[in-house]
């Protein structure tokens, strides 16, 4: 029966081509939008897993909403159940180029905490920061690739400071002492430097952007989070679970928006399949009547017509995946030169796309197929 299905859809090449193209456009959108959503999900997952054992302490007004400083770090450290605490300072690597998705950042970190903070992440080259390092930097893999840097090279970091006459941009070279392996996390786009040098260079006094608190092995992170908020004034603490929940909620909204747009495009493709199949069934009324007179069963006609619709769906899906994959490949390649990536095509996304396009074809073809299968052979044969 497959040869008949193929014969039927190749018989009307232009119409089939346009229908397949409609589905392909929808799946193209699913791949591109879904690839973006998958990338953010994976990046978030990997970033979380690197610091999953720590409680994040932020200013009460949220990230960047107030000043945390070294004294707050000490306060957090004194809370019973906290085994260690340290501050991190975040600043853009190039303040003049904000970048579409945050871009590269400088992360000030106490040198002695870096290896611990990065958990099991290995270096591809050089070493981690050590106590006594001054203007030294450990680069994420993305930054190293973007600026084509290796250990021993110099990286120029810019700082914009407010002065009486406006803003003044300072620059300073940091010597690369280590390059991290690819983690798929935000750390790939980070330049990690000693915290005290970052505070000095960015003119931030002793302030930090956030504090990471390491719980005692026996402490319950949820209880400890509440205890930190109780003991330390004007801070908001997030347990790993709570942070994950909050970020996941925002990612769900992002995924919903992107995937909905893609699914809508694909559904429009599905409608084109239905339209094509309705036209085809109408044109072939007499043919279906004849097949029934020759002994075709309802399932034969259903299989044939739905098979045509499903095949168009599968072809559209494959074309959409190839097209979307090609665009994502070229965009990622281009963005890699800027030190970032935006899309990840996962096996899950590929399976979803092909299953979705096939189902779209089958569902869109169901009604036309039902009409064809339910035709009275006598009326169909009389149809002109």
């Amino acid at each position, binding site marked *: 029966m497959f040869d008949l299905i193929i014969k039927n859809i190749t018989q009307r090449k232009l119409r089939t081509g346009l229908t397949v193209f409609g589905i392909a456009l929808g799946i193209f959108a699913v791949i591109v939008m879904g690839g973006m959503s998958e990338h953010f999900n994976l990046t978030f997952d990997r970033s979380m897993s690197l610091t999953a054992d720590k409680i994040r302490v932020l200013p009460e007004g949220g990230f960047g909403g107030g000043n945390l400083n070294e004294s707050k770090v000490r306060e957090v450290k004194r809370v019973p159940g906290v085994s260690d605490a340290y501050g991190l300072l975040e600043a853009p690597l190039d303040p003049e180029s904000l970048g579409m998705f945050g871009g590269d950042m400088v992360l000030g970190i106490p040198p002695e905490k870096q290896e611990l903070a990065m958990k099991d992440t290995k270096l591809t080259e050089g070493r981690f920061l050590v106590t006594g390092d001054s203007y030294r930097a450990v680069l994420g893999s993305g930054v190293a690739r973007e600026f084509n840097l290796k250990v021993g090279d110099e990286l120029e970091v810019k700082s914009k400071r407010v002065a009486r006459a406006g803003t003044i941009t300072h620059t300073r070279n940091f010597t690369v002492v280590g390059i991290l392996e690819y983690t798929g996390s935000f750390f790939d786009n980070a330049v990690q430097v000693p915290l005290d040098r970052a505070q000095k260079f960015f003119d931030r006094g002793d302030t930090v952007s956030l504090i990471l608190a390491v719980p005692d092995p026996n402490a319950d992170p949820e209880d400890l989070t509440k205890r930190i908020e109780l003991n330390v004034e004007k801070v908001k603490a997030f347990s790993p679970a709570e942070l994950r929940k909050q970020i996941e909620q925002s990612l769900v909204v992002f995924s919903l928006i992107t995937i909905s747009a893609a699914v809508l495009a694909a559904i429009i493709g599905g409608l084109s399949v239905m339209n094509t199949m309705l036209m085809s069934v109408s044109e072939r009324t007499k043919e279906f009547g004849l097949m029934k007179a020759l*002994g075709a069963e309802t399932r034969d006609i259903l299989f044939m017509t739905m098979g045509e619709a499903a095949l168009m769906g599968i072809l559209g899906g494959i074309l959409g995946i190839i097209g979307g994959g090609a665009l994502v490949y070229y965009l990622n390649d281009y963005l890699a030169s800027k030190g970032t990536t935006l899309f990840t095509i996962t096996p899950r996304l590929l399976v979803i796309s092909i299953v979705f396009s096939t189902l779209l074809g089958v569902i869109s073809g169901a009604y036309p197929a039902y009409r064809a299968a339910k035709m009275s052979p006598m009326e169909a044969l009389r149809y002109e």
Partner: protein
Amino acid sequence: MNDNEAILRVRNLSKTYMQGKIPVHALSDVSFDVQKSEFLSIVGPSGSGKSTFLSMIGLLDKPTSGSVFIDGIEVTKASDREAPVIRREKIGFVFQHFNLIPTLSALENVDIAMRFARVPKSRRKERAVELLTQMGLRDRMNHKPSELSGGEQQRVAIARAMANYPAIILADEPTGEVDTKTRDMIVALLKELAEKGQTILIVTHDTAVSARTNRVITMRDGMIESDTKVEEK
């Protein structure tokens, strides 16, 4: 007549259509038998009920009352699931307009009837080639209907009708769309098949066709007016 030898038995077959609120009796209490390898024709003017009758015995339409038995099976009692099986195993159709599938070759048009009967692929091809050779179309097998003459198309349709070794071939005006020379050739072909044991029932209004069958049933106003055996010339 012995009922046990009849390939087709029709008993008190009636069909009434409603035209608005007015009942139209297309068939009224029709009964007759057809024996194996009979070559018979049903003739009559337009509206006499001959095409309605053909639809009833071909399971394309259901009668209002009465019974039709083909090869001993009461086909008028067939369910929607049984009807396709009876159509493909017991009946072969030949239509006035040939009704070949335009996208398929002659060979594929014959093959398709056997596909629905779930005949294995290798056997289907063998049988289709055999039939088309028998019809004198061996060198035209891979041509599409649009590349064949009317006579050739009708021969493909006859080959298709014979594909599943049906108990009876029902031909609805099989010479209605061909010239007289082709008509004679098609009738001769059908007659030859009947002589080899195939039961064939033709509906026609062409007396030149009915004259060459072995039995002529004349219908008028939904009833059998006459049933005549034709002497062999």
